[in-house]
């Protein structure tokens, strides 16, 4: 069972209280964008075997969206942070680098 700390309520909450929302830090493209950008935004995903940044919603709690840094193989959680951020915080990135040197994810790593 995955257990995360909701960055808003500060409580430890498990999967039965949460809804998974897929890849985080998607860059939104709308009308006027190219077909490539639109396709990439709507459909194509990183789906990595390793470090994944993802959205979760604390549905049976505060109802808010937050982000999680997690390994999709070991299920290790490197931290949670509010959804209103363009990049994971430096301390989470450092924590990942310590465990998985050389990890990469899109434009930030």
């Amino acid at each position, binding site marked *: *069972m*995955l257990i995360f700390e909701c960055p808003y309520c500060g409580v430890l909450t498990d*999967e*039965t209280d949460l*809804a*998974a929302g*897929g*890849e985080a830090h998607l860059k939104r493209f709308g009308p006027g964008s190219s*077909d*490539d950008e*639109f*396709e*990439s935004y*709507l*459909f*194509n*995903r*990183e*789906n*990595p*075997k390793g470090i*994944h940044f*993802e959205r979760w919603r604390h549905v049976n709690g505060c109802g808010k969206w937050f982000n999680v840094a997690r390994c*999709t*193989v*070991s*299920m290790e959680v490197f931290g949670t942070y509010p959804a209103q951020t363009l990049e994971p915080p430096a301390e989470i990135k450092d924590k990942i680098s310590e465990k998985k040197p050389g990890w990469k994810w899109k434009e930030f790593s």
Partner: protein
Amino acid sequence: MKKYSAFAVAREALRDHIGWERAWQSPEPRSKYDVIIIGAGGHGLATAYYLGKNYGIKNVAILEKGWLGGGNTGRNTTIIRSNYLQDPSAAIYEKARSLYENLSQDLNYNIMFSPRGVMMLAQTQHEIRGYKRTAHANALQGVSTEFISPQKVKKLCPIINIEGPRYPVLGALWQPRGGTARHDAVAWGYARACSDMGMHIIQQCEVTGVNTMNGKAVGVETTKGTIVCEKIGIVVAGHSGVLADMAGFRLPIESVALQALVSEPIKPCMDVVVMANTVHGYMSQSDKGEMVIGGGADGYNNYSQRGSFHHVEETVRALVETFPIISRLKMLRWWGGIVDMTGDRSPIISKTPVKNIFMNCGWGTGGFKAIPGSGWAMAELIAKGEPGPLAEDFRVTRFREGQFIDESVAAGVAH
């Protein structure tokens, strides 16, 4: 290759079974092949088989990082049906189902195809309408299905409680020619036939890189060295994203865990397959007597071949209401597989941005039933370099074109 037959069984019985051959060879890889298939699951092996059988292309290697059939092919609940809603789906799944009918004879290997009938329960008004619509669509597609009454459901499967307070059975979509087959045997039968054609099945050989030159595939890096080839077929299910990354493109796919479990064996009590999509549960009885149970997929990215316990709990809780008889059964084994989900819940059989690399993936929770048809279509794609009629609608560019083959609305669960 010596043929399997009743005569062979009798002959070997009389001489302590010393005459059986290995079913397939385990050669060391050569440095060059015409075609490399990555992934020795059912879809990869079937692709290789029909490349040889239909197109005479036999200089083929099938590379497998673990053991053949050890991925989802050996982890699924073996439901075979073709009662999908959209025309391209009906075409390929029905092709597969019809190939399954004679597959044992074709491969000279008993894959234990058992067309015992598949019913999908309607437990809400919405499902009644949905399944009636599917039955009408199937009639036009030439797939034989019918919408049946709760009484007929009870007659076909007496252990069902049709008056459940929470999940009453209001009818079902019934496909009498659907059923099950032995999953391992499908992989083993194709492997034996491929090996017999001189193809190389190389197990314990992980592909770690895809080599391209001027936007064209030229070979692969593996844990057993570099191998050169003309064409590559990537058929790795849950690992499709990893291989696409090696080849330098992304896919509209996410990998998640799907789980199944089996009970202790009991006497025969159920000779059809029952799927209850509202409650995300389905069940059949294996020839050994075990109740084979599957549920819904988890919602988050996962490569660990383990799923969430609460999901299984929900499935079993709902099934106990529909089948009260199973409430005291002990569960023997429980496992997960990593399935490759697309947004429209339909597969991808397609050319890719890299020339001479072809993908077959996105079968998600329901690709066992498709193995022969998928291999047939993928072999055509690789041999000709262009998709045939079975594959063309499943091109990866359908997403950007908005030409979805939407099966996610038709059935919440798609096994």
